[in-house]
Every structure is written in structure tokens, then in C-alpha cells.
């Protein structure tokens, strides 16, 4: 069908005075393929919409060029309007003559406005419709990790009508909850029971994920359960693989022993029904190696309070900074101080030495401005929060990047909070970093909300051929597959012979990296194709 273009110019209520609209129209009217050029006062309001509608229908145009304000304001609305008019929304081309022309310059900018419109016109000529269709998705979700996050995510998912499968590599559910006492410990039994009772949740214990293929809506996951391997498909995957704590040898000068212990060991001692002799002086130390974790502060405050309550010991905390930036921690800190816990803040790491069966700490206190020497019966060492065992292996199975500490996800604020670079794969809780309870809970419900939104309709609307590799030109060099940040491309065999790259429209996030990198120029990104970009470049300065 030959191109027939309608151009609508909007003078924004007559306010774009530094553009001579009649002159612009004059220059555009005689262009090839242009059916008409209309000037309007306010295309964005109802009357503008009516004008576009009637002109488009009566003139029977098949390309729409609109010169108006920034696409940020108007693109979605005009695209919607085109759809209403049974025109493919991709046949719309916009020129931003307000924010980036009239408002950005002083004096007459008619020429620039005309050029911007010419760029849009030349691009419009080359635009092709992009059809959309619904693709069915698998409505089941996979949750990996049967700890607090995994169980809570599964429960919330099932409440929203998504059927989760919960995979845990241990023989029983519970994860780190099994080690914790107090508030979390009290939640453990109730939670496990609730998960087991929920018919919608399928539980696979002693099972591990060993392979993930496919894309959102259709992930093919290989799970090894004891000796058997199961292949299952899921619409989305939520990783809640948790953390581990560790005392790193390099960070702490002395080895753990009877009187240098971990927080975990202390918690166990506190739980023990009897103790030979309760320690008189206890020292806690953290901030020795780095300061990016809230975990040591929280563990110290909770345990220090428990020590005070249970044994009444003298408690000293050595640290650089008390990390109080999560909900309720400042109150906990105050309570600890009121109960007599002493906080000593150092700049340089304290010296820790053995002293006749006890432990001596030499530290410079910045608040007192004095050197302090303290001999403790028990020293509780700093524990680091690290990704759980196997996180690295899983991330390479998933082809997903980890941060410098090995946690899932690079810090990219656009991907925050729980989404990964692969659509349909999510991370919650401490497997993606050091989070406190409030943040963990927010993680869980936000991932549940996103998964629900994706899967519950049972289908996703996709643009069929927005980005497409031409099988005739593709040489299967794998460049695009290696470059695609969203892992949306794979090789497929067509007509039983040639192997070519195929872009999954479900997984594709429309960035165009593949189109730019393809050495055979086989990939076309409709709307931003080479032709369309070059047409815009060539249109500059022609008028």
C-alpha cells in the first residue's frame, strides 16, 4: 500500500510564538506522500482528538506525523488513539517542537521546527506496522528456598491464586529459622504448618535447581531430587536462597575457641538450660573489616540485651558506627544503653590478644579520647553476612550477574527492588543483599505483586516482530546471544536445516543492543532500524 501521510501540527494554544506555523505548513504540504497538513491549537485535548479522528478517517491515511510537545506527555495517548482508529500504533511518528525546540531557544526557530518535523516525516515513511498478539503463559511459579522468605512468598502467592512449587535442598523446611530463637523462632512452626496445609503449594524438599532454560511464561527448570531429575515448567521463578554468616579469618586476628565465639554460638549458650558459670564480662566487636552491613549491629543489640537479662554480665560493644538505620533499631540501641551496655567507638581496629585464659581488647575510644584496655571472659566476634552456599553456581546456571560480594543483582536502581535482568526471574530477601526485616517483608510482597500481575491473566500481550533477526542474513555467529542483556535470544533450527538466532518477544526488553552489534546486519528493530535512524540523519539540514 502506498504511503499516505497526515501531518498534524500543534501550536500549543498559540503559545509557540517563535515558530511560524503557516510557513512550516507551506514547506510540508508539497512533500511527496503527504495528504494534508493541519494546524491545531491543542491536540492533546478532546477537540484535538476529534480533529485527528475525523481527518484520519476521511483522508484514509496510513501514517500519522504529529508535531507537538514531548512524547513523554503525548506518545501514549496518541498511540492509544491510533489503535482506536484501527491504525497500528507503530505508524505514528512524533516531532518534539515544544520542549526541545520552541522552549529551548530564544528567537525564531521555524527552521529548526521544520527540520524536526522533516525528520519525523522521513522516519514515518519507513515505519511498518507491528502486530501484537497474546501469548499464553504458564501460571505456576517456582520458589527456590524454603526459609522464611521462600515460605512467606509461597503463602502470599497461593493466597493470590498462583500455584507455587517450593523447592528446598534440605530435607525439611525452615532454613535459617531453624537456628533462630526468639521472635523468628516462634514463627517457625506456625509457618511450616501453614505452608504444608496449603493445598496450592507443592513442596519439594531435598531438591535442587540444576538448570533453567526458556523465558518468562515458559521456564523449563531441571530439578534434581535425591537421585532423580525432574523437568518442570514454570511461568516465573522466585529465588529466596538466603544467606550464611561467617567469621572470615583475615578479618579477625584470633581463632574462635572457648572464649572467642560467634553470635550463633552465643545464642545457643543463651538458650542452654544451665551454664557452669555465667561470664562476668562480655565484649562484642564489629566493623573490623567493612561497614556495609546492618546485620552485626542487630545481632549484637539483640544478644547484648539477652545477655543482660539472662546473666547480668557487664557488656561492652566495640564498633565504629552503630547501624541504626532500620526501623526500631535506634530504640533497641537506647534500651541497651539504658540497661547498662557500654558502647565504645574506635577509629583504628582494636588489638585483641589472649590474656591468661581471657581475652584482652585494647582500643582507642573516640568519644572519651582515651585508650581503653579491657579483659573479657567472652568475646563475640563479628560475623559477616554472605550469600548462601551455592549462590554462585546458581547464578551461572541462570546467567545472571552478582555483585562484588557475590549477592544476586548488581546495584541498578532501575531494576530495584526485586527484578533481575531476565524477565520473570526475581530475588527476595537476603540472597540479594543485607536486608532487615522491614525490607525483607517489602521485598516479599512486592515480588508477589509483580508475579501475580504477570501470571494471573494467563497470557501476556507481546509485539510479534518488533525486533527480528532475518533468517536469510543471520550467520549464527552467536554475537547477539552473547550480547543480549536479557538473555532473550537463542539459536533455533528453521526448515530443518539452517540454524539462526531467534529473539523471544516475551523476554526481549527492546533495547536494540543486538541490532547494533550484529555483524551481518541481520537484526531489525522496527521503529529504530538502521534505515529509520539514517533517514532522520539525512533529513537534517535538507530544508
Amino acid at each position: 500500500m502506498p504511503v499516505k501521510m497526515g501531518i498534524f501540527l500543534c501550536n500549543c494554544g498559540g503559545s509557540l510564538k517563535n515558530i511560524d506555523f503557516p510557513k512550516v505548513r507551506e514547506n510540508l504540504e508539497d512533500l511527496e506522500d503527504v495528504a494534508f497538513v493541519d494546524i491545531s491549537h491543542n491536540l492533546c485535548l478532546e477537540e484535538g482528538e476529534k480533529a485527528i479522528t475525523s481527518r484520519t478517517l476521511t483522508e484514509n491515511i496510513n501514517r500519522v506525523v504529529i508535531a507537538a510537545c514531548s512524547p513523554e506527555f503525548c506518545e501514549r495517548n496518541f498511540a492509544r488513539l491510533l489503535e482506536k482508529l484501527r491504525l497500528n500504533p507503530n505508524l505514528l511518528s512524533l516531532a518534539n517542537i515544544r520542549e526541545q525546540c520552541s522552549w529551548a531557544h530564544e528567537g525564531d526557530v521555524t527552521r529548526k521546527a521544520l527540520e524536526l518535523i522533516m525528520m519525523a516525516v522521513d522516519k514515518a515513511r519507513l515505519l511498518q506496522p507491528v502486530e501484537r498478539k497474546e501469548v499464553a503463559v504458564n501460571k505456576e511459579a517456582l520458589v527456590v528456598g524454603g526459609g522464611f522468605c521462600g515460605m512467606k512468598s509461597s503463602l502470599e502467592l497461593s493466597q493470590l491464586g498462583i500455584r507455587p512449587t517450593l523447592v528446598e535442598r534440605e530435607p525439611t523446611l525452615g532454613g535459617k529459622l531453624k537456628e533462630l530463637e526468639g521472635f523468628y523462632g516462634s514463627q517457625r512452626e506456625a509457618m511450616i504448618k501453614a505452608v504444608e496445609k496449603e493445598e496450592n503449594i507443592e513442596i519439594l524438599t531435598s531438591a535442587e535447581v540444576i538448570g533453567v532454560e526458556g523465558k518468562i511464561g515458559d521456564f523449563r527448570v531441571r530439578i534434581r531430587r535425591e537421585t532423580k531429575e525432574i523437568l518442570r515448567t514454570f511461568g516465573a521463578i522466585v529465588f529466596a536462597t538466603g544467606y550464611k554468616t561467617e567469621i572470615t579469618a583475615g578479618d579477625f586476628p584470633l581463632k574462635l575457641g572457648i572464649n572467642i565465639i560467634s553470635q550463633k554460638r552465643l545464642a545457643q549458650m543463651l538458650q542452654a538450660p544451665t551454664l557452669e558459670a555465667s561470664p562476668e564480662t562480655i565484649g562484642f566487636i564489629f566493623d573490623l573489616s567493612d561497614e556495609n552491613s546492618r546485620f552485626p549491629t542487630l545481632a549484637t543489640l539483640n544478644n547484648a540485651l539477652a545477655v543482660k537479662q539472662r546473666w547480668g554480665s557487664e557488656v561492652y560493644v566495640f564498633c565504629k558506627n552503630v547501624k541504626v538505620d532500620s526501623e526500631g533499631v535506634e530504640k533497641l540501641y537506647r534500651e541497651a544503653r539504658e540497661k547498662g551496655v557500654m558502647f565504645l567507638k574506635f577509629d583504628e581496629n582494636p588489638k585483641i590478644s589472649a590474656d591468661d585464659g581471657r581475652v584482652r581488647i585494647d582500643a582507642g575510644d573516640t568519644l572519651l579520647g582515651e585508650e581503653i584496655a579491657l579483659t573479657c571472659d567472652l568475646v563475640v566476634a563479628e560475623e559477616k553476612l554472605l550469600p548462601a552456599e551455592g549462590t554462585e553456581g546458581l547464578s551461572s546456571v541462570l546467567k545472571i550477574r552478582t555483585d562484588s560480594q557475590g549477592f544476586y543483582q548488581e546495584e541498578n536502581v532501575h531494576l530495584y527492588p526485586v527484578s533481575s535482568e531476565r524477565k520473570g526471574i526475581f530475588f527476595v530477601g537476603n540472597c540479594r543483599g543485607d536486608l532487615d526485616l522491614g525490607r525483607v517483608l517489602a521485598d516479599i510482597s512486592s515480588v508477589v505483586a509483580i508475579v501475580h500481575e504477570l501470571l494471573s491473566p494467563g497470557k501476556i500481550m507481546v509485539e510479534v516482530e518488533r525486533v527480528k533477526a532475518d533468517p536469510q542474513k543471520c550467520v549464527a555467529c552467536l554475537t547477539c546471544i552473547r550480547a543480549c542483556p536479557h538473555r532473550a535470544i537463542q539459536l533455533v533450527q528453521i526448515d530443518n536445516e539452517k540454524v539462526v538466532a531467534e529473539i523471544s518477544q516475551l523476554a526481549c526488553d527492546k533495547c536494540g543492543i543486538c541490532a547494533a552489534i550484529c555483524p551481518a546486519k541481520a537484526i531489525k528493530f522496527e521503529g529504530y532500524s538502521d534505515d529509520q535512524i539514517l533517514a532522520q540523519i539525512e533529513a537534517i539540514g535538507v530544508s
Partner: protein
Amino acid sequence: MNGEIIAFCCEHSAYAAADAAGKQGLHYPEKLRVIRVPCAGRVDIIHMLKALEEGAAAVLVLGCEDGLCQHLTGNVRAKERVKYSGMLLTEVGIDGGRVGMFNLAANAPHKFIKIIKEMNERIKKQGR
């Protein structure tokens, strides 16, 4: 074309920054022509060369801040391509600095203006 500056602007950041500059009434040289792209990673070497061939004085690729590319590597790739294009230009005796890649955020109109003005100064010095 006659000495224009072409800026390929990522729609997640630089394009919005350009809009914000207009909204705040911050003025910049009229010779700027913005081409909207979905990610700086879409911009290819040939786009930059073609623009210069057509007579542009300079080409800018403006993408998201380092580490903030929605497509993870788009802005990094763009930077390398710009570097490579600069080398190709130097090879044929053209100032490689006439192509440039800069990172900025959607809410940084002042940075946008600064980039455009600096590039304009550069090409002015070369008599374009």
C-alpha cells in the same frame, strides 16, 4: 547538513533531561538535533559516521549513568563504540573528539546543557 550537533539520546535519561532543560527555560545552541533511541546501546558506529559524513559538526551519544543502564551494558557498549568511532575518525585525519559519549540522569538538565555547550565550544574552536 551544515555543522549541526547530532545527539542520540536514550529515552530513559538524556531525552528526559533535554525535555527538562526546555521546561526550565535553559537555553542551548539551536544547532542541536536530538534523535531519540531506546538505549544508548542501540547507537551503532555507522550512525555516527554517517552523521558526520552528512555534514554534522559533532555527534553525541547520551546515555544513562554508569551502572544505571536499564539494559545493563548499553551505555558501556555505547562508550566503547564512541571511542572506536573516534579512532576511526582520527585515522582519516578528523578530530576524534567530535564524537562523544556522556552519561547523565533524567533529572539532570543542567548537565545536559553543559555537555552541549562544551561540545559547541569545541567545534567552534575548530572553525565550524
